[in-house]
């Protein structure tokens, strides 16, 4: 029979047995990975977040109060780590200069771009109409649309609709009050509906750019 989180925490605090801690890691590592992956869209970074999360959990184990929910505490740490990475990305994005030269032979490689070399194509964040026509998989579109949401709304949607956390748990994880969580979820769903409307409209099965 699996021990509850509380029982494992108590046992680990009493014995300091690393196998008990590893049990907690195995219980939550995948869920932490899913959230990190959904937020970061990068499996390597998401794996790093999983590792760093549990290292932090271990380092701060004495600070955890048993009256709180252990899962919320873990996901709050993971959420903060993800936010740090996203902020770093934002800083990098704002400082990287790309010179545009249509004659250049250097192809633009996503994520592996050679900085300071002119690129022949500039990335377009908007979906390409031809691309969108090629997209047959519904889930792919939903994923793309999810990634277009503001981070605050996206994380609430992922935590609630994908991970099944309650409003109060989400509030604890993201460090906001329940009213804010409710509002973010509401506006996130409205925005997602608008983003998905071109693909799932019953009137015309074409993206909005064609109408």
């Amino acid at each position: 029979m699996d021990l509850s989180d509380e029982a494992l925490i108590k046992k680990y605090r009493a014995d300091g047995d690393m196998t008990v801690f590893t049990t907690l890691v195995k219980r939550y590592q995948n869920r932490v990975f899913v959230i990190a992956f959904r937020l970061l869209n990068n499996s390597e970074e998401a794996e790093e977040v999983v590792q760093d999360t549990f290292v932090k959990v271990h380092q701060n184990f004495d600070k955890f109060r048993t009256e709180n929910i252990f899962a919320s505490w873990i996901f709050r740490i993971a959420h903060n780590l993800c936010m740090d990475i996203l902020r770093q990305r934002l800083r990098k994005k704002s400082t990287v200069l790309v010179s545009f030269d249509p004659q250049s032979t250097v192809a633009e490689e996503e994520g592996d771009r050679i900085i300071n070399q002119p690129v022949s194509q500039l990335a377009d964040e908007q979906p390409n109409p031809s691309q969108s026509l090629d997209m047959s998989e519904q889930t792919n579109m939903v994923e793309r649309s999810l990634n277009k949401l503001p981070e605050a709304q996206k994380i609430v949607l992922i935590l609630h609709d994908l991970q099944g956390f309650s409003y109060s748990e989400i509030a604890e994880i993201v460090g906001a009050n329940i009213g804010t969580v409710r509002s973010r979820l509401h506006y996130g769903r409205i925005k997602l509906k608008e983003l998905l409307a071109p693909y799932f409209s019953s009137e015309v099965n074409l993206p909005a750019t064609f109408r």
Partner: protein
Amino acid sequence: MQDPNLKCQQLEDALDAYYDLELSAEEAEAVERHLADCAACTARLAEIDSVVMQVKSVPEVQLSRDLSGDIEAKILALQNKAVEIAPPNNVVPFAPPSKKKYYWLASAAAVFALCLGLTQLKPTPDSATLLTHSKVTPADEQVTDQVTDQVTDQVTDQVTDHVRDHAYQKPVLPDHVVATKPVVAPALAIKPHQIPTTATTQMLAASGNSGGTKDHKQDINQNQINDSEELVALYDYDNTDNASDLGISTNEDGLYAIKL
């Protein structure tokens, strides 16, 4: 009757909370009563369901491998690093003994000294007895007065001599010379060895013998200024830059100016 639109606006995010079963029983009942009569909100509820279903349709991602081993290794590495950094228990740091442990002794001594001082200020029974029982005779008073006068005269003479020798002698202007504004800074700022008494006083004394015409007054004032420049140069001899306090300033070339 309530405005149905306003009611719908009030239900903005409550519909999401209703869908997510996050409302209290009373709130949920109120929403259900509204939904029974409002097709628009019922349609919105269906939209919420549709969006949530689409989100849930996103394929699940899985960790490609178990990370618990890596995590354990990281934790152990950090623990070992911490042990390496921390000094062993048997190593005594080579440092002079802290003076902190003597602070309490110093403070205790200070308090004791303070208490002792306070008790000395208060008249003790012995000293009070001495004061009340000692009688001063007229002969005692006479001797005391003589000693006091002698000491006072001696000290006064010494002080007078000292002042005569060291104090700045203010130049004496002739009666017909009227100084409009002081051009010399206060004597206190001048060092004894730098007192420029001779040039100024001699010049002024010479000019004082030649009568009191208007032109002569101007000459004297001009001479005063010239002398004051000399004085200023002496003032800032040590480059202390205190001259500004005396109304004296320098320009970029190091030339001195006096605010008149």
